[in-house]
């Protein structure tokens, strides 16, 4: 009984590992902001929503976080965690974020006034 139990456990473990390796071999579908080599620009529409939905930006620790946000009205863009806020003037404008990716984790950039998330930013180890 004991031997059989151990064998079943080992077999299941092997199956689990193989299954997970197969499942995880498809690669990540997250967009690395640094892949394209150009600065991503997040455009916000008149209603305060990001065009194309919330942007996914992924960086490695030590990379340079670099993106722009274009908003057609007066607002404040806030990158949480890194705690960097930038003002959009009356009539709208574009702000640029350019800072080192020092803190690992997942962070949100939002339009403070609208409480609207616009960027889901990941910094991986």
């Amino acid at each position, binding site marked *: *009984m*004991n*031997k059989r*139990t*151990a064998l*079943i*456990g*080992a077999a*299941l*473990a092997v199956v*689990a*590992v193989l299954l*997970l*390796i197969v*499942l*995880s071999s498809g690669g990540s579908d*997250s967009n690395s902001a640094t892949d394209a080599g150009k600065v991503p620009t997040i455009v916000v529409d008149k209603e305060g929503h990001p065009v194309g939905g919330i942007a996914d930006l992924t960086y490695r620790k030590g990379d340079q976080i670099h993106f722009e946000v274009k908003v057609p009205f007066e607002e404040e863009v806030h990158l*949480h*965690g890194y*705690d960097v806020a930038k003002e959009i003037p009356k009539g709208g404008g574009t702000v640029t974020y350019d800072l080192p990716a*020092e*803190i*690992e*984790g*997942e*962070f*949100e950039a939002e339009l403070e006034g609208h*409480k*609207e*998330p616009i960027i*889901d930013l*990941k910094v*991986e*180890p």
Partner: protein
Amino acid sequence: MTILPFAHALASRQDLPIPAWLFAWAASIVLIVSFFALSAAWRKPQFEDEHRRPFSERLSGTLLGLPVQALCGAIGVFLLGVTIYAGLRGTEAPDRNFALTFIFATCWLGFPFFSAIFGDLFRPFNPWRALGRATGGAFRAIAGQRPAHLAYPERLGRWPAAVGLLAFVWIEVVYGRTSIVSVDIEPHAVAIAAFVYSVYTLAMMTVFGVEKWCDRGEAFSVYFGMFGRLGIFGAREGRPYRRRPFSAATSWALVPGSAAVVIASIAATSFDGAQDGAFKDAIESVFNWFTDRGLALTTGLRLTDTIFMLATFAAVAAVYMLGVRGMRTVPGAPSFKELRTGFAHTLIPIALAYLVAHYFSFFVFQEQAQFGYLLSDPLGTGHTDLFGTVTNEVDYKLLSANAIWYIQVGALVVGHVIGLMLAHDRSLVYWPDYRKATASQYWMLAVMVAFTCFGLYLLSVANG
């Protein structure tokens, strides 16, 4: 796990999903450890006796004497008052108001984490218990007799606490939801809820008695006390004592409704973790279905989340019941009801593991805010600096992503092992024949593996 809608309103940093290779390793370790445990475990119950070692009379008298009890109770009442006041009069910014972090991080997570090590730490600081006891003492002094109470309907067991627990979590993760549509939780609403709950609790204590209601119906006493049963200190008949870890858990679930409490705990954490990850697409589909039929956005979202939260509770309960049903097939098994009650305590370590895995980093980050700027400026007005810490910031570099991953996975694996140990131990009570006990544990092993792997899966799924 990560975007907790409410926590999200507080914490600026969320955890990254665990990588696939770590998921694979952890799942494999869980399986190997489980089967090894089944084949090599002990043959006589080890946790049914607490092996109490009482404190000296002097220390007992000090710890449980009136001055210390009154002081602890007064601290609890004071902090409840500060919380309600800060919620009503302070800023509406969730991350700058003392009330939210104190309730949802310091108390909601701090008491389970530390009680699981040291025993029930909430009991002496329970503000409602302190108020109830003080009122009862005043009544005795004036009337010269103990206040009369109605007999508590034992059939209800701990169901009122289970419902209260779900209601609390509903406020946290459904009412306070901040994705799809913005439904921010407001400190003012939380303060009102705390006040209403206080009135309700004091009324129930008046009707049924302070200690009875704390043991059966007061959601926080029951919830924190449940984790306290894993800890090494307890008290009985005016005497604190040291005991074997986890041993007090074996008698906790004998009261009806206890299984519902621990299942509610697992379900609440699961739902919170899956809400913006594993369940995100399904929630959005149902939400769209409601709003397409004319339901307002906020109402549609809350209705959708409520349905999914209750469905998660039902699913967790179903997995446990399947395990119990399976054990019933082993020759010599007691009744289904007895098994259902008898093994419920084995889920407590799983519930704790879920809490640690999902909220540990949030707790570490948010407590820096709690003991930094929130303590100095509880109302968040920006004009107060009581302890000179108002400019302290949260250090998000304190925990690396790797450290968080290992803590999360480690918590789930350790919780799994302790759950298995308790289940194996209890099976030896019902089946003195070791082989039958082992056969019964194939079923509980399946339950534990299901919960642990689901927990790992939730941790591995990216936020939406």
